[in-house]
């Protein structure tokens, strides 16, 4: 069996989508689905400043990478035809319109679940990967908190 590439990292560097795509492309690969998240500069939410100057991201890096690895394993279990998987979270001070996170899944064809697999990956990242962000705007700082409580075994 071919060794399928799995990339997971927490980085302070700019995301390089083209390089990541190349890393999850095998000779048998014909399709990839990417999800990227970007810092929003304007967001409508009650009680929060409407304009974001920047977000400050931090991570518990070794655990975050372990959980990314776990998500990749979950994806392979649910979509065994997925070939390459890349999960990358950028941390540090990130300004509006900057890509912050990437989930990419590749496979031979597009009807193999790559869209669902990438969707699953970003949903799970937001549930179990220990990364936090603080929104800094004209009105001060606000920690953004998720709502998911991991269960035993997650």
């Amino acid at each position, binding site marked *: 069996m071919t060794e399928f590439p799995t990339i997971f990292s927490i980085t302070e560097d700019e995301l390089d989508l083209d390089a990541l795509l190349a890393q999850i492309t095998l000779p048998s690969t014909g399709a990839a689905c990417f999800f990227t*998240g970007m810092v929003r500069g304007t967001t409508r939410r009650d009680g929060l400043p409407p304009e974001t100057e920047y977000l400050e*991201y*931090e*991570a*518990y890096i*070794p*655990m*975050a990478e*372990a959980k990314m690895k776990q998500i990749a394993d979950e994806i392979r279990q649910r979509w065994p035809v997925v070939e390459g998987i890349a999960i990358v*979270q950028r941390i540090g001070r990130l300004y509006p319109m900057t890509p*912050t*996170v990437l989930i990419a899944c590749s496979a031979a064809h597009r009807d193999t679940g790559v869209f669902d697999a990438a969707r699953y990956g*970003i949903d799970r*990242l*937001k*549930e*179990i*990967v*220990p*990364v*936090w*962000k*603080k929104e800094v705007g004209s009105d001060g700082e606000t*920690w*953004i*908190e*998720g*709502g*998911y*409580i*991991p*269960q*035993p075994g*997650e």
Partner: protein
Amino acid sequence: MNEITILFFATMRDHTGERKISITVPENTQVSSLKAILAERYPQAVAALDATLVSINRDYAFDEDLIPAGAEVAMFPHVSGG
């Protein structure tokens, strides 16, 4: 007695004012007991400790879990990556 390390992230770091501490706890200390020990040490963080997520050696841990010798424990709020 077991020596363990505790890391605090995000709001838990703000509440405790600490990033990383080393403490000694009795053998077979449960996560819930550790929270009680820390609540005494950081009275301003009692509510936060009540709601904190906990990991032991980089896996999520829960109130009844025992903390092994040399454990790397971490405490942090609900995650919000992406």
